[in-house]
């Protein structure tokens, strides 16, 4: 096993899947010689050539639209959209076609493609480079939305995404790309899409989160533990379809919950989580579920972004509020 950053782990997943299956091709802007602006596709062009590591013209609708055609033909395209904030140019290709082709052809033509895109704040990037709008995709029937939280699960989920018969939106947190290293086994590892994970067990309060927000949530749990509060942390990993069973079970134990995400609060992913818990665990809830989220504004330019993003302090306070301790 080697210690890897998330970037390296993702690179490993791509490399191994490409080795295993010549129908896997990559396409996107600057993914060839440049290796992607975050280097996730570093040196893959040297191994697999420019027919499989396809530098595209500067056109997002083309990246997704061509991938739809390639997938119909039997390839397994893995698209890189340089930043998730530039995926909107391809929104119609995702909604009108990637998400619908199987359904529109009664299962005859399928679109086993992946759209990888870096998302989220925290790296002092320029505007349009720090958004977290996974809710758009989560609300779109026909897609599945996956957001890993660390190097190891990023690798295992990307393998699953590439092999998935359905189109997958795969959001990668820029803040996590090089945040830390983790043991990632050389041999194949794959995680099931649609399954959440208990990142920490506890029975006082349930905290549900995903992606980059797992880190401050874990830290918050440490702080809470010092005050004798045991948090159970659920790392969603897949946003849609939502694995609500795990959280429902947790609430039955804790009776209260906090949801943490960077996305704007209103009409955000947390709203659906709250609603599922309302529907399936209402009678176990002792207090309103707290949402610790980005505000309903555009994430500010980087001098202020740290005050926009959820942090340990806000999570700790919300957990206490959920426990009616403040």
């Amino acid at each position, binding site marked *: 096993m080697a210690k890897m950053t998330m970037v390296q782990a993702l690179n490993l997943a791509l490399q191994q899947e490409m080795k295993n299956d010549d129908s896997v091709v990559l396409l996107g802007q600057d993914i060839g010689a440049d290796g992607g602006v975050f280097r996730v596709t570093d040196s893959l062009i040297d191994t697999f050539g420019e027919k499989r590591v396809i530098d595209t013209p500067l056109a997002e609708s*083309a990246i997704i639209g061509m991938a739809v055609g390639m997938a119909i033909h039997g390839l397994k395209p893995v698209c890189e959209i340089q930043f998730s904030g530039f995926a909107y140019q391809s929104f119609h290709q995702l909604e009108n076609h990637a998400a619908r082709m199987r359904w529109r052809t009664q299962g005859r033509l399928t679109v086993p493609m992946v759209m990888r895109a870096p998302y989220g704040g925290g790296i002092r990037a320029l505007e349009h480079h720090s958004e977290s709008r996974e809710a758009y995709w989560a609300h779109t029937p026909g897609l599945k939305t996956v957001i890993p939280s660390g190097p190891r699960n990023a690798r295992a989920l990307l393998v699953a995404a590439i092999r998935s018969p359905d189109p997958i939106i795969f959001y990668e947190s820029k803040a996590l790309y090089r945040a830390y290293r983790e043991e990632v086994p050389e041999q194949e590892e794959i995680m099931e899409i649609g399954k959440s994970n208990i990142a920490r067990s506890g029975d006082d309060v349930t905290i549900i989160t995903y992606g980059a927000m797992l880190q401050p949530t874990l830290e918050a749990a440490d702080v809470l533990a010092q005050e004798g509060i045991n948090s159970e942390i659920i790392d969603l990993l897949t946003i849609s379809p939502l694995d609500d069973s795990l959280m429902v079970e947790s609430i039955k134990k804790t009776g209260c919950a906090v949801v943490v995400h960077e996305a704007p609060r209103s009409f955000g992913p947390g709203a659906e989580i709250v609603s599922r818990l309302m529907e399936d665990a209402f009678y176990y809830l002792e207090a309103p579920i707290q949402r610790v989220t980005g505000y309903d504004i555009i994430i500010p330019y980087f001098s202020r972004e740290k005050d926009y993003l959820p942090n340990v302090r806000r999570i700790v306070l919300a957990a206490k509020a959920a426990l009616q301790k403040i």
Partner: protein
Amino acid sequence: MPRTKIDLPETIDYLSILDEHGNVDQELEPDISESKLRALYRSMLLGRRFDERMVDLQRQGRIGTFPPIKGQEASQIGSIFQLRPTDWFVPAFRETAAEIWRGRSLESILLYYNGYNEGTLLDRDQKDLPLAIPVSSQILHATGLGYAANYRDSGEIVMVYFGDGATSEGDFHEGLNCAAVYQTPVLFICQNNQWAISIPVKKQTHSQTIAQKALAYGMPGIQVDGNDILAVYAATKEAAERARNGGGPTLIECVTYRVMMHTTADDPSRYRSDTEVESWIKKDPLSRFENYLIDKAFLNDSSREKIEQEVRKQIQAAVESAEKQMQDLGAPVDMFKHLYADLPRQLKKQREELRAHLTAAEREVDNG
């Protein structure tokens, strides 16, 4: 060094072979066998008659909104003819004649326009995409298919259809640009039928032709008389051969006319004159081709009538069969089918929710 004219390698040609009256330019006349000519004719006629029947059915409330193709049969049949079963067909939404040529059953078309998802079902191995309603969006799929064909070295080519209006969308641009960059074997067939709903082509673009847009991509482009099946045939043949030989994509503009309304929901009298329509009816692709075949003695009144009868019978049978099929179709819970390879748990729950509702509702009805 000073101000110099840049020489562009490509020029844009115009091609016409069979004129309005059925006179042929013998130097350009393509060499097509009698049986093939007859096959082309039969398909044009079937396209025409089925179209007329669909409009009637819509008027009778027996199908939903339908976009007629009348007047565009030569553009469709003359081009699709070049496609082998192993090649890829990517339609927009007004290619009924081409879809039928490719093997789509009349029944499936009837089901589709009756609001049944089952109407999109084709043979498993048919290399045809379903029709695409979001204008221009399908163009990129063709480019992607062409890329994959090159990647697999399969020798397949791709033919994608779209209208004059479609050329204004960003996806047209991105699709043609990428196709040229990757030299994918794609034939971009623009049926310039002069109108995009109520917008005439001169309000769609300031360029003199659609064909010249190929210059923006360093791609060959040609404009043909789209009501002249021989010209369409010849231009497509040339482009298909080039594509098969690694020569990359071509843009072909077929100048034709949408004789009917945009869809059965549209009222063209709001925005265009009868005289314009009549002037184009004189250029009808079907009668022009008929005259040509008659001149060549490949067709006469009785053989013509025989084909006419066959076609009508085929259509009538399809309508009856489709209407029969529909009686057994439409189980509402089937709406959950085919969205994902495996239905996620939450969706199974929702399907059961719907099923329970339907059963209970039925019970209530049964109980009065």
